Every structure is written in structure tokens, then in C-alpha cells.
């Protein structure tokens, strides 16, 4: 297991390098001159050139990249172009709301999604299955944006149970987590259902039943565990998306997280912040994938031994 993990870990390094180049290029090739945005619309050309020079935007791209990487490797993400605040400070102040939001969403989505999936599979084509399918399909089809606003209207404006947004207490996270987790919950429900159904066809399940194991044990110990690989894959991928993709929910619920920081930064061409965020998101994604890979090894020893 240790060697397997090490192999995977080393494989991440070139990937991170490629990501850093791509992120850098993407940002510097999109149109829009940040110097012009900083200078304001009534700025003179001289001022704009001054700012370009100050930020090193007049240098050739490769030169800018080298400067950027050497700063990065020494732990310096630079200052926000727009506000002058160090990027690390900004990330620090924004990361917790996003993490909370993501974990809460993922947690309930995993539990409920798996539950619905397993029940649907066990009661295939009976009413619990139909109900589960209906829930999952609706959950997938409802646009998150709309769901968020509807939840606010019902639970904040009409009933007054939860605040409309912000991060003042745990209550603030309830509605956003429901909104953000809905799609993933539905997806997990569908995946775990089909995965369970497949597993339930397997010979060893029949064997288990034949040797008189209780149905509960068959389902939870044999079927569920073996169908988890697919679910873990999907959940891992979705988790990565969640961390970077809570943009919409953070906007609707005014949560000061990383997603909103990204949107704000893109609007103002705040290169340094966008770069740092994209790099952070990609790194998270890569690491989550790594974890998923390792979990495969745990869930199915065949995978790690075949290496």
C-alpha cells in the first residue's frame, strides 16, 4: 500500500507543473487589460503604461511566468492587483466558508444519496424505487440558482426560520447546503442504485443468501461495500467541483467564500487572485483524485496488488 501511495503521489508533480503553465496562459491570453481597469476610464495613456510597468505586464510572457513561478515556489502569491491586499490573506479569509459549505453539502448528499440509492435498488420497481427515482430526477433537474431563491422565499421571507444569507451562525449554512448538495445527492442516488443493482446480480450475493445470511447483512456488508467503488469515484469528482464550483450558491446566499472571490476577481481581471484560486482549485482536484485512487486500493485490494 505504501509503495502504491508513493507512486501516485509522485505522479502528481508533473501534473501540477502542467496545470501551473495552463492556468498562467489561460489568464494572460484572455482579453482585457488589467492596467486599464486599475487606472480607471478617465486615465491617461501614461498612467496606464506606468501601471503596466509596475506590475511587470510589459514583460514577455515567458518572463512573467518565470517571475510568477519563482515567487510561487517561495510561497509568495503576490498582492491583489485591485486592492493591494496579499493574496494569501484573501484566500485565508475566504476559505473557511467555502469549506464548511462544501462539507455540509457533501455530507448530507452522501448520506441521503446512498440511502435513496440502496433503498431504490433493494425495492427495485416497487414504490420506494419510484419515489427515489422521482426525487433524484427532480433534484438533478432543478437549477440551483432557482432552488436557492425559492428556499429563501419560503424559509427566510415567509417562515423566517433561517437568515437569507451571510455566515453569521450555523443556521446560515442550512439553506445553501441544501441548494448545493441537491444535485450531487441526486447523482449519488442514481449511481449507487445502478451500482447496487449490478452487485446484487453477482454470484457471491446469491451464495451469501444461500448460506442463510440475513438480508441486512448481505446488503450492507457484501453488496454495499462492493458497489461503493463507483460511488466513491463520482463523489470524489463532485467534491472537487463543489469546492471550486460553489460560485452560484455563494452569490445567491451572499457567502464570502472562494467562489465569489473568483467571480469578483474575474470581473476585474485581478490576475494574481485568479491565478492563485485556479491553482488552488486544480491542486485540490488533483489531490482529491489521488485520495480516490487510494480509496480504490482500500476498497478493492485487487487494484493495489495488480500494480
Amino acid at each position: 500500500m505504501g509503495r502504491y501511495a508513493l507512486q501516485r503521489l509522485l505522479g502528481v508533480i508533473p501534473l501540477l507543473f502542467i496545470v501551473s503553465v495552463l492556468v498562467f496562459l489561460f489568464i494572460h491570453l484572455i482579453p482585457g487589460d488589467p492596467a486599464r481597469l486599475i487606472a480607471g476610464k478617465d486615465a491617461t495613456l501614461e498612467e496606464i503604461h506606468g501601471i503596466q510597468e509596475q506590475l511587470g505586464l510589459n514583460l514577455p510572457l515567458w518572463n512573467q511566468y518565470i517571475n510568477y513561478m519563482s515567487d510561487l515556489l517561495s510561497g509568495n502569491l503576490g498582492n491583489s492587483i485591485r486592492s493591494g491586499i496579499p493574496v494569501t490573506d484573501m484566500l485565508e479569509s475566504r476559505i473557511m466558508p467555502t469549506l464548511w459549505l462544501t462539507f455540509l453539502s457533501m455530507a448530507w448528499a452522501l448520506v441521503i444519496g446512498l440511502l435513496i440509492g440502496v433503498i431504490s435498488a433493494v425495492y427495485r420497481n416497487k414504490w420506494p424505487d419510484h419515489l427515489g427515482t422521482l426525487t433524484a430526477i427532480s433534484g438533478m433537474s432543478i437549477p440551483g440558482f432557482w432552488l436557492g431563491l425559492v428556499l429563501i422565499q419560503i424559509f427566510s421571507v415567509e417562515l423566517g426560520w433561517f437568515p437569507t444569507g451571510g455566515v453569521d451562525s450555523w443556521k446560515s449554512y442550512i439553506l445553501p447546503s441544501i441548494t448545493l448538495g441537491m444535485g450531487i445527492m441526486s447523482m449519488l442516488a442514481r449511481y449507487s442504485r445502478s451500482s447496487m443493482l449490478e452487485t446484487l446480480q453477482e454470484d457471491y450475493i446469491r451464495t451469501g443468501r444461500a448460506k442463510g445470511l440475513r438480508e441486512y447483512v448481505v446488503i450492507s456488508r457484501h453488496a454495499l461495500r462492493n458497489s461503493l467503488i463507483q460511488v466513491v469515484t463520482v463523489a470524489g469528482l463532485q467534491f472537487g467541483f463543489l469546492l471550486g464550483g460553489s460560485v452560484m450558491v455563494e452569490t445567491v446566499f451572499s457567502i464570502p467564500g472562494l467562489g465569489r472571490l473568483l467571480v469578483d476577481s474575474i470581473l476585474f481581471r485581478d490576475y494574481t487572485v485568479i491565478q492563485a484560486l485556479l491553482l488552488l482549485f486544480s491542486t485540490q482536484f488533483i489531490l482529491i483524485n489521488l485520495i480516490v485512487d487510494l480509496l480504490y486500493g482500500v476498497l478493492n485490494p485487487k487494484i493495489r496488488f495488480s500494480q
Partner: protein
Amino acid sequence: MKAKGKVWSMFMLLLITVVMTAGCGNKGNNEGQGGNTAGGTETSTPTTKNDKDIVIAINSNFITLDPHNASDTHSISAARTMYEGLMGFDENMNVVPVLAASHSISEDGLVYTFTLQENVKFQDGTDFNAEAVKVNIARIQDEKNNLRLRKSFAKVAKVETPDAKTVVITLSEPYNAFLNKVAMAPIISPKALTENGADITKMPVGTGPFKFKEWVQGDRLVVEKNTDYWQKDLPKVDSITFRPVPENGSRIAMLKTGEADFIYPMPTEQVSEVEGLEGITVDTIDSTIVRYVTLNTMKKPFDDVKVRQAINYAINKDAYIKVVKSGLGAKLDSTMSSKTQYYSQQTGYDYDIEKAKQLLAEAGYPDGFETEIWGENESETMKGMQFIQQQLALVGIKLDVKSMEGGTLSDQINAAKTPEEAKIQMWYVSWSPSSGDADGATRGLFSSEMFPPAGSNTAYYKNENVDKWIAEANKAVDPEAAKSIYANIQKTVWEDAPWTFMGVDQIISGKRSNLEGVKVFPDGSINVLNAEVK
């Protein structure tokens, strides 16, 4: 059951690992970080807020609290709760004295003498005096600081302080808009400037009605009552919390639930929904933001003034305001809004299709022509361009609507180094002068020195008289003289029609009916000095 337990512990492992990975981005500061969040969670509970603590929801984050470096109106609003300048603005954007009790300008327009208010103290207890003003202007002018306001003070040659209550500013050349620039320059406590250094952007200390309490970026800015404020009986509320709430629907919801006492901007499409609701009031005022279409006067067919006038006649501005601006706007009847300094109303260009056709025929385009209009890809702008497209189709002008993302559009316009290279034909856009001054609403747009990429004269408009007048107006000392020069400029530009004059935006805010005294000024800044809960 062992297997099951293992699965769950693995799940927990997944969660924990991700927390740690995410933490990698911020170099081991997780502990302090977690502490911050927890602290914030427990200390502030706005659901049980006091009547004297008001909450204002705005649509985007504050960028900086450095009053000399703020460029967005929200940062300016925030600065003005804690800071004051020698001069300030009233609700019609007239320049009025604040920390200056009085001022005089020498006949040659070069020497500005300010007599300061007595008994004003900064929030750190130090005295506000002439020396403080001098320190602030030096800070603004220092090239190393690279502050947004530096340009506004470029013409300041020297600052003298004959005594503690007098400041004499001498300019290198007359500058008619100078008082407006002074009004944009709040005074920071010199002691705080020295002690806080660069952190002054996060720990403001001024003379204003409110003191800084906390700023949690992206979540809230809290300012509390300055109990030693120099103006009697002000402020009347204990604290103000600003919250950035980007989503329109969420801002409205906060107003409805009472989580917010004041919201700005009020989304236009929602005005009808909340109007008449008990406890909610909607306020509307004209802004300094003008909307227009620039017509490239150096390109055929717009090089003919008749074509440009024809387009002005062919568009029904009343319908424009009704359809595109949901009825919340005014017709643009000059080159600037009625809330801008030295505005002079113009007449003409009433909707007249026959006249438009006739002018087009006289210009040699009896059957119209084909051209394209540019604009940003934001929904209201696109609606505006489609409206113009429909209107011009009636006189035979076929418009190709090209909407682009802001950055792309800006690149397109500024890529042309000379007028000949310019590809722009028509551009539907808006403008607002940064300090409500006529120079700011004129020079960048109509001076022939301001062709892109140097400035925003995207109509490539060149009129020798206008060029001359713009320079003269800047040097005028007497406000009446400046006023009449600007009247000439407005009249001439109006007749030359380098723009299709469309509309003036209105500023719409929503508030709980028991809140009084919070006002949005025409430049979009929120004034809270007189805030009061009834």
C-alpha cells in the same frame, strides 16, 4: 459489522484529508483562521439587532478603505462614513464646505485659502488642523504611494499653513474643477498614518460621524457611532453594518425580512413587486450616469452631421425609457446629467421619423445603410441595443448588434492607435464623471486629445471651438464664466451630435419605512450622516 465501520472511517478520512489539502493553500494559518470564523459566528447576531444598529445591503464588495485610493462608489461610501474632507457634496452634487468653515479663491484662480472648522478631533483624539491637511496632500501627491487621487492633485504646486486654522493651496495653473477634487479628498489622521503605515487601508481613522469597528472581507463592514463627533446631535444611530449581497433577489429578500434596513441598488425589475408593500419604501433620484451611443464621426456614413442628427430623431427616447429602463430613467437632454456641475438643458431631437428620413435623404442615404453597434453582453445593455436596432430599422438603417464581454470590447476599442485604424462605428455605453464636475463629464469624451487609447472620445469627435472652450473652462475662475463656457460646449456638441443621446439612469434604493436620512447621492455613493430610526 467491521467492514461497515471501516467504510465510515474511510469516509471521515476523506473529509479530513481534504480539509488539510485545502489548508495547504494558506501556509499553516488554519488555527488563527478557524478562530476568526468562530469568533465572528458568536459575536455578531444580526437577527437580534438593536433598532439603533442599521444594516445596509449593497451589491458588491468594498475594495479598499483607503479614502485616497478608492475608485468604486461603494468604497467611497464606506470612506465617507469615517472620513471627511475640507469640502464635500450635498445631495445634488453641489460642492459644500465640511471641515473648511470657509474658503476663498484668488482672482487669478491660483490660490485657494481654506479656513478650518475649530474643535474638530480625529477619532484617535488628535487635533484636526492645517498641518493634518498638509500631511494628507503630501501623501496623495507622493508618487511612491501611487494613489488614485494623485492625478486630481497634480496641479497643486505648494501647500502652506500660516497658522493652525488656515491652509493655503497654490496651483501651478488655474483648475476650475479643483474644489470638486478637494471634496474627493478625505483627511486621514496624521498620527494614524504614521502608526498604522500600510495598514491604514484596513484601520481607518478620520473625523467622520462613524468609527471603524471591523471589516470581514466579502462579508461585512461595521462602523460605530463616533461619540465625539464635532457636529452636534449627530449621528443618531449606534452602528451601521454594510453587507455585500450580489444577488438581486437575495437583497430584496433581506429587505422584506428586515435583515437589511436599506438596500442599494434596488433591482429595477423588482420595484413593482415591493412597491406598496407595508414597511418598505422605494426612493428614486436622477444619477450622474448618462447613456448614449457614440457615432464614429470620422467614418462614413457618420461623418455627415445630418446622418447623426437623423439617428437622434429616429429613436423614440420615451419608449426607450419605458421599454429598456422599465420606466426608471430620464431622457438625456444634454451631454451630461442634470446632476452634473454646469449642466445646461438642450432641446430638439424629439421623435420624428419623417424628419429622420428627410435628413438621411439629404445626406445621400435615402434607403438607409448597414452598420454595426457594439456593447457589453450584459442583459440590459443587450436589450438597449436591440431596441435601437428596431427603431433604426424603421428608417432603413440595418444594425448588426455585436455584444461583447467587457474586456474584449475594451481591447477592441483601444487596439486602434490612430482614428484611421478604428473599427468602431456605434457603441452603446455609459459614462459618469468621478467627482460630479463638468470637466470630468466633458474633456475625456469630446476633446480631440482624448481619442482612444488616450481617452474615451470614442466618437472621434473633433471641433476646434470645443477643444478651445474645454481648455478655457478649466482656467476660468468665476463660476458664472465657467458655466457659460460649458453651456456653449453642450450646445455645440448637442448640435454636432457625435452621440445619440439616450437617457440618464435613475438611482433606486429600497428601505424599511422607519429608517430616515439614508440617501444615495447622484454619483451612487450612500450618505448615512443623518441616518435615523423613527
